[in-house]
């Protein structure tokens, strides 16, 4: 925002210097109560937004004091999740969150990059508006609707078509062992891929478009093909694409409803993508309302706290990276 400077606004011109001078003096000496109050009132609310983030962190930290003091760091590296015995280890949940998100990125990243390349390097300009509208819309479809589709369309398809095919052709790999339930890691990874793809595609496209045309023209002028010039663009956009990936990862890690509905909800670690798993977000969604003991509640709050820290770090990193790239090329 350009600060408003009354003394130079308008530029003078025919205004006599004396009048200009008095106007400037007037602007300086006039201290307005309303201005002061209004500015600081809005500032207070802005401060509210800022403190909200810290308040959230503090409340969750305080809320999980029981398990933090009892289990310490072991909470993150042990794998018994047994509410009956009040034993809590979050490792299978962290594993499930990371594996399903990794799977999602594995699928969504190349696809998203392909889409971004198409839109920024190949497609005509008029495609841009409908595309950004489509992305906006997809980002707005509630997670629960993805989950509903996952249960009634994706899971049956996996069980009847994809999983039998995978196990008969690649059954010797540890990833495709075990009975085909449909529900499980694979379903979670696929539905997450669908949800994360628009984010990765649209941010990568923004990053690619931020790179000056001069680079493309230089490459093409030297006789490079479209793809060769795109490769040069891609290497300049590397860190921005990393940022897009991190943002996508942040979304995948925190995604709750769609994952809960298809992941199978069993707290165990397995190499097979066919077997049911659990994620940090879905254990909270499933068990929080029923948590009976205060230790149980505390364990779930601690998981939320870990999730909070993870997503804050991911988002902050991603924004810094994207911001530094787009800023470098802006001026």
């Amino acid at each position, binding site marked *: *925002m350009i*600060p*408003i400077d*009354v003394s130079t606004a*308008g530029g003078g011109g025919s205004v006599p210097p004396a009048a200009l001078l008095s106007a400037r003096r007037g602007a300086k000496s006039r201290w307005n109560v*309303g*201005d002061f109050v*209004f*500015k600081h009132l*809005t500032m*207070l*609310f802005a401060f*509210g*937004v800022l403190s909200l*983030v810290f308040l*959230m962190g503090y409340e*969750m930290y305080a*809320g999980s004091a029981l398990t933090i003091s009892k289990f310490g760091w072991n909470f993150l590296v042990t794998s018994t999740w047994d509410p009956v015995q009040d034993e809590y280890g979050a490792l299978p949940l962290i594993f499930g969150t990371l594996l399903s998100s990794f799977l999602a990125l594995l699928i969504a990243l190349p*696809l*998203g*990059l*392909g*889409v971004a*390349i198409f839109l920024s390097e190949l497609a005509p300009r008029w495609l841009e508006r409908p595309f950004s*509208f489509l992305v*906006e*819309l997809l980002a*707005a479809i*509630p997670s*629960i*609707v993805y*989950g*509903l*589709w996952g249960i*009634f*369309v994706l899971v049956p398809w996996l069980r009847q078509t994809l999983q039998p095919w995978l196990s008969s052709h690649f059954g010797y790999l540890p990833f495709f062992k075990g009975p085909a339930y449909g529900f499980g890691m694979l379903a979670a990874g696929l539905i997450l891929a669908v949800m994360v793809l*628009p984010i990765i595609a649209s941010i990568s496209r923004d990053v690619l478009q931020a790179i000056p045309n001069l680079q493309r023209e230089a490459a093409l002028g030297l006789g490079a*093909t*479209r*793809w*060769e010039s*795109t490769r040069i663009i891609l290497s300049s956009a590397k860190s921005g694409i990393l940022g897009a990936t991190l*943002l996508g990862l*942040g*979304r995948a890690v*925190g995604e*709750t*409803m769609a994952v809960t509905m298809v992941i199978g909800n069993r707290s165990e670690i397995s190499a097979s993508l066919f077997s049911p798993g659990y994620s940090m*977000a879905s254990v*909270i*969604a499933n068990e*929080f*309302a029923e948590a009976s003991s205060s230790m149980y509640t505390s364990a779930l*709050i601690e998981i*939320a706290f870990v*999730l909070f820290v993870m997503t804050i770090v*991911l*988002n*902050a990193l991603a*924004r810094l990276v994207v911001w530094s790239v787009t800023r470098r090329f802006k001026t």
Partner: protein
Amino acid sequence: MMTTSEKLYLFWRKAKNNAMVLFSVACVLLAVAPLILIFSYTLIQGISALNIDFFIQMPKPVGETGGGMANAIVGTGILIGLGALFGLPVGIMAGIYLAEYGDNPFAGTVRFLADVLSGIPSIVVGVVAYVIVVLPMKHFSALAGGVALAILMIPTVTRTTEEMIRLVPQSYREAGLAIGIPRWKTTLRIILPTALKGITTGILLAIARAAGETAPLLFTALGNRFWSTAIDQPIASLTVFIYDYSKAPFEDWIRQAWGAAFVLIALIFVLSVIFRIVTRSRYAEH
């Protein structure tokens, strides 16, 4: 002119180029396919599931077919109403600050944290609302759900308000100040009314998104099969109903879940289109 090996190399480069073009087109098709599938499937299932009963009837007891989600529709309305009540003032005022006085490190930090806040999973926000509201009150309530939705709305509303105010040309501001109107009055009486259309639709979009949230309501507003409009009691919502019904063994409940999903998508779709149209005319003017 060209030797054979040079020709071959050129051919190879062109082939690689064409392959990559094909690859990226294939990516677009692959990316769009599931999205079209989800969209069309929900539309087909949803439209056939909707009838008048869905909107005006209460849920029937377990096992009986028919009935509707009247209480959930009202419940969702109350929840987003509460969310807007708590969230909008904070978001709008913070947005005004960022747009009008936002040229300092403090504002930069707020902007950054608002963006980070919008990336925090909604389930985590639900846990926070549980700790702040449900624990002290000792029971689930619509109020807690409203607080969760408010926290979710704040970053979007803040950033939209800021961006919409920034679209107002600087000359409007200068004109107000030049005729001696104090700055705060210029903001409230000239800048805000000019940006109002954009801000309002942005807010509606944020509200529509909040209406689609499930995770933060599961253990704040909880859900309710009966008619309730009391804000200190558990309250029904469309999304929690979809979740519960999706796990049910009854055909009819699943039908109603699709109906509710369709209603949510339709709401969000309409508001998104309106937002697009309004913001586009804004850009076009200047």
